[in-house]
């Protein structure tokens, strides 16, 4: 009985299960309606990652394309991208370095140029202080050609020639392209390139240097080999003389351009040199720069004669000007001296007084008073020196009480015998010598009437009959 019951139970369960399946199916169809099929599909998609990604991709693209407010998408992505970038650089920097290489060169050069210009202007200031004749010459040149003074100083000292240029495949050391200046001699360039590469490898191996660094220059005497390394190519130039900075820059730019244009060919190089022949003009440009400078120097020599004439003319004018100035100064001094002398002479002469002096239109004027018995002022003017100045004398007569003049007056007014000597002191007329009584008696009362004489002193005179 029990068995039968359990059989019935299981049988019933089975039937229930069977029923449930289809029942559920029907139930689902009833609940979800026509969307049932599409919903089923969507569920399938969600379960399958490949199908899911196909579904989501356009949405992601659209999301990225849309401008999100506040650049929030950018902010969200930034840490991830930066992290990925840093990982890439720390595990293997090479791909990133190669990718950045064409960009970094110009950026670095720009910053270096800015620094150099700053240095140049400081340098310029220092040189400002030099005053040697050569420096003055350079100064003149700088002013004339409108260049900076420091530049002229440096360029004036350069003389160089770029003799050869090699374009070398960095990995193998094989020579891709070679240019030689007409006047230069070159030994087998294939082997030279190989050896140059070997030497770079040798240097890298023997001395601890940064990975990917290379030689920049080899110097021997007046010969310099300038080397510019790009990831897959090397450009080397043989320069005789002092190469200016521009040559190194030119090489940098050239190798960068070549690298940019020919990256694929350089990486896949299998030895076919014809692939790079079209780069010849680029290399030749590195040679030609040097010729231009040489030509400049040659035309300089031709035009230097003219320049010399101008220079000497200029100097001559300067000298004349200087001479003129000196002469004027000298003349002025002489005039001054003479004028002072005249004034002194007149002032010290008894019976003459200067009341006013002036200078008017090239003529000195002296106004003063002159006693008729004094020496005439005009005689004092040309006394001694050749005259440089014109003097106009305006003297009015006056009565001088100078002792000398008074004595003169006495002599002229009275008949003084030879035996009598006169002298005047403190307005006292002193008689000495011999005289007759009559003369003395005659003289005494009249003489005190003469201005400048107060009294007479006859103690020293001897009276005779």
């Amino acid at each position, binding site marked *: 009985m029990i068995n039968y019951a359990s059989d019935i139970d299981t049988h019933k369960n089975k039937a229930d299960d069977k029923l449930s399946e289809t029942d559920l199916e029907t139930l689902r169809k009833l609940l979800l309606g026509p969307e049932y099929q599409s919903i089923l599909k969507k569920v399938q998609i969600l379960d399958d990652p490949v199908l899911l990604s196909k579904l989501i991709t356009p949405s992601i693209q659209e999301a990225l394309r849309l401008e999100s407010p506040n650049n929030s998408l950018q902010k969200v992505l930034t840490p991830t991208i930066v992290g990925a970038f840093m990982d890439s650089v720390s595990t293997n920097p090479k791909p990133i370095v190669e990718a950045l290489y064409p960009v970094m060169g110009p950026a670095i050069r720009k910053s270096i140029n800015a620094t150099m210009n700053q240095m140049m202007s400081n340098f310029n200031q220092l040189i400002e202080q030099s005053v040697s004749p050569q420096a003055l010459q350079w100064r003149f040149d700088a002013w004339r050609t409108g260049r900076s003074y420091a530049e002229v100083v440096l360029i004036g000292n350069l003389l160089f020639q770029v003799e050869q240029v090699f374009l070398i*495949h960095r*990995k*193998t*050391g*094989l*020579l891709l392209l070679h240019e030689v200046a007409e006047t230069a001699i070159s*030994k*087998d360039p*294939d*082997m*030279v390139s*190989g*050896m140059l590469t*070997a*030497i770079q*490898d*040798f240097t*890298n*191996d023997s001395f601890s240097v940064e990975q990917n660094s290379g030689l920049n220059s080899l110097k021997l005497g007046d010969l310099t080999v300038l080397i510019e390394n790009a990831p897959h190519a090397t450009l080397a130039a043989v320069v005789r003389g002092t190469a200016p900075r521009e040559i190194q820059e030119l090489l940098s730019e050239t190798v960068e351009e070549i690298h940019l244009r020919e990256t694929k060919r350089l990486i896949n190089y*299998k*030895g*076919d*040199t*014809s692939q790079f022949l079209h780069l010849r003009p680029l290399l030749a440009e590195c040679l030609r720069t040097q010729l231009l400078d040489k030509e400049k120097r040659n035309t300089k020599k031709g035009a230097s004669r003219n320049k010399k004439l101008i220079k000497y003319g200029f100097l001559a004018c300067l000298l004349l000007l200087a001479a003129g100035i000196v002469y004027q100064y000298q003349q002025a001094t002489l005039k001054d001296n003479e004028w002072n002398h005249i004034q002194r002479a007149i002032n010290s002469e008894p019976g003459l007084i200067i009341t006013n002096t002036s200078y008017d239109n090239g003529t000195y004027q002296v106004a003063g008073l002159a006693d008729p018995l004094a020496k005439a002022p005009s005689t004092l003017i040309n006394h001694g020196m050749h005259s440089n100045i014109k003097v106009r004398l305006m003297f009015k007569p006056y009565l001088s009480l100078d002792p000398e003049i008074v004595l003169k007056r006495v002599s002229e007014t009275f008949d003084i015998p030879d035996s009598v000597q006169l002298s005047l002191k403190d307005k006292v007329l002193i008689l000495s010598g011999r005289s007759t009584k009559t003369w003395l008696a005659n003289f005494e009362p009249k003489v005190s009437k003469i201005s400048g004489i107060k009294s007479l002193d006859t103690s020293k005179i001897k009276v005779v009959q």
Partner: protein
Amino acid sequence: MVQKKICLLGAFAVGKTSLVMRYVSSIFGDKYHTTVGVKIDKRQLTCEDQAVTLMIWDLAGQDDLTRLRTSYLRGVSGYIIVADGTRPFSLNTAINMHKEAREYTGDVPFIVAINKADLKDEHWQVEEEQLRALENDGATIILTSAKTGDGVEEAFQQLTRNILKAESENKQLNDVEIT
């Protein structure tokens, strides 16, 4: 005209330089071996109607397995290992060098040159079995003599041929991949 870089490897004093001296144009003296560790020579030949310029990097000989100047092997299209037929140890050195180089260069064509073949009848120390073993490994063995010049031209020609063949095979492979 096609350029190829190849290297010469081998123990000290196996006759590498003497071997090639007759067949290459050279502007650098032997002192470069002791200073820089490599001497560059050039050989121009025609192989399979193709004008080829071989830039030969003659690496300074080393007696033991101290570091091969691996940077000199960079970009090499093929190489020649030179051993001295009268010194068996030089062959071992050569084989070891070959293994080391292989790690660096990958699967490039190579030739084994056993030098001083002119002394084959007198001081020859190389066992035939060794040679067979090498050949089984895939090496091409050429007996050479710097003194008489035997085998040298052949060595260069063979290597160049192998290089060009390997290259065209590679190219075919690449072409197939693209299509």
